[in-house]
């Protein structure tokens, strides 16, 4: 019947590219992305789902990649920070972070950008309080959040404008 297994073959789409890999079933998705696929933009800050540095999108939803096993990403579509924008074509959220000093050391930044990406899709016109709540699942130790909150407001504005223009 069902065979016992400690290794498993998975097919996963990351930033539009399909990968087929055999993985140890205990490999965390964060480790898989970083070590197997070399997508080191996803950072690991606590491995217990608190800090949010490893946040990625799975089928469009923001989740902690340290709390998922790589095998659980089988047949799923993932977006990491590498899939949000490029140095030559920053996403409006990334632009807003750049213009509003939304980052200092930059280690937590990919997690924030991903969380904000999902948040502004759900709530394109957020209040300050809603922004703070939405960011509360991501820890930053450099900025005191001031620049990040400003960036989210600016990003919402930018996205609205591009919506109007588009």
């Amino acid at each position: 019947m069902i065979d016992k297994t400690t290794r498993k073959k998975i097919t996963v789409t990351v930033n539009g590219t399909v990968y087929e890999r055999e993985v140890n079933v205990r490999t965390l998705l964060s480790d898989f992305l970083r070590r197997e696929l070399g997508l080191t933009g996803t950072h690991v800050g606590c491995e217990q789902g608190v800090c949010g540095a490893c946040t990625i999108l799975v089928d469009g939803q923001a989740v902690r990649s340290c709390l998922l096993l790589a095998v659980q990403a089988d047949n799923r579509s993932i977006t990491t920070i590498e899939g949000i924008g490029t140095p030559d074509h920053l996403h409006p959220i990334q632009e807003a972070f750049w213009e509003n000093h939304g980052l200092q050391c930059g280690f937590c930044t990919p997690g924030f950008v991903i969380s904000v990406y999902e948040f502004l899709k759900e709530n394109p016109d957020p209040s300050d309080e809603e922004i703070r709540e939405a960011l509360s699942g991501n820890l930053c130790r450099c900025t005191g959040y001031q620049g990040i909150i400003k960036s989210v407001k600016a990003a919402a504005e930018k996205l609205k404008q591009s919506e109007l223009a588009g």
Partner: protein
Amino acid sequence: MKPVKFDYYSPKTVDEALTLLEEAGFDGKIIAGGQSLVPIMNMRLSSPECLIDINQLHDLQFIEFDSDKVKIGALTRQAEVERSDVVQKHLGLLSEAVPFIGHVQTRNRGTFGGSLVHADPTAEIPLSLMALGGTLHIASKEEVREVNVEDFFITYLTTDIMPNEMLTEIHIPIEQERNGYSFYEISRRHGDFALVASACQLTIDHLDRITNVRLVLGGVEATPLLIEGANEWMNGEVLSDSLLQKVEDIVDEMVDPESDIHATAEYRRHLSKKLAVRTVKSAYERARGEANERS
């Protein structure tokens, strides 16, 4: 912080999952959202030999309105409950409680059933279900049995579910006319486990007298604490300062919290009284139609 080795199965049907559970016995552990399990696996505080991943059991992922009740599949994500119009309309208490769970990134993954089975006595869903009442459908190879929520939680992180069983769905009676609800919790930071949480669900008659009340406190006992007998002294009463004082006194008598690194027993006792009063008051006001927004 990496998990120990385990065998991993990803059954496609409930039946397959139940067969696996039967075979694995005490070595088997179900993983659903994994938002409580994986952290403790990464810290090696939990080391299951056999992990049965039920995320493929899409049949268990639903929210359905059915005349006098709402049925929620065990695998339904907490975020789906949060966003559900059906829940919003018929189970206001749940809509109010779920946003307190962790953060959006964990609610996107964490499941309704997982929270119940994990049975953390401060957790929002167990508390809310205890206040709403309802039945849990628990399946094994042999049968599907129904357990009332009052009989479900046994002690800290322990429920009535046997190793060969699995929670499949939860049926919750919908709110009555002139119903009011309120959920509130205190934690050190937003999204942390509550120090104390309180849920209240009540109905009133045309003279604003309480006709039915369920008041539940979390973080004060090994399981969510339903203030039993509340109907005996609250039914027929309108809200008054003396009634609220009585709520405080009874709660003081009934709770038996413990100290941990986040709070002492005395502080939890204090909070449980304050939160009980707050949620009773706010539920009552809601029932009278005085305040519809979140408290």
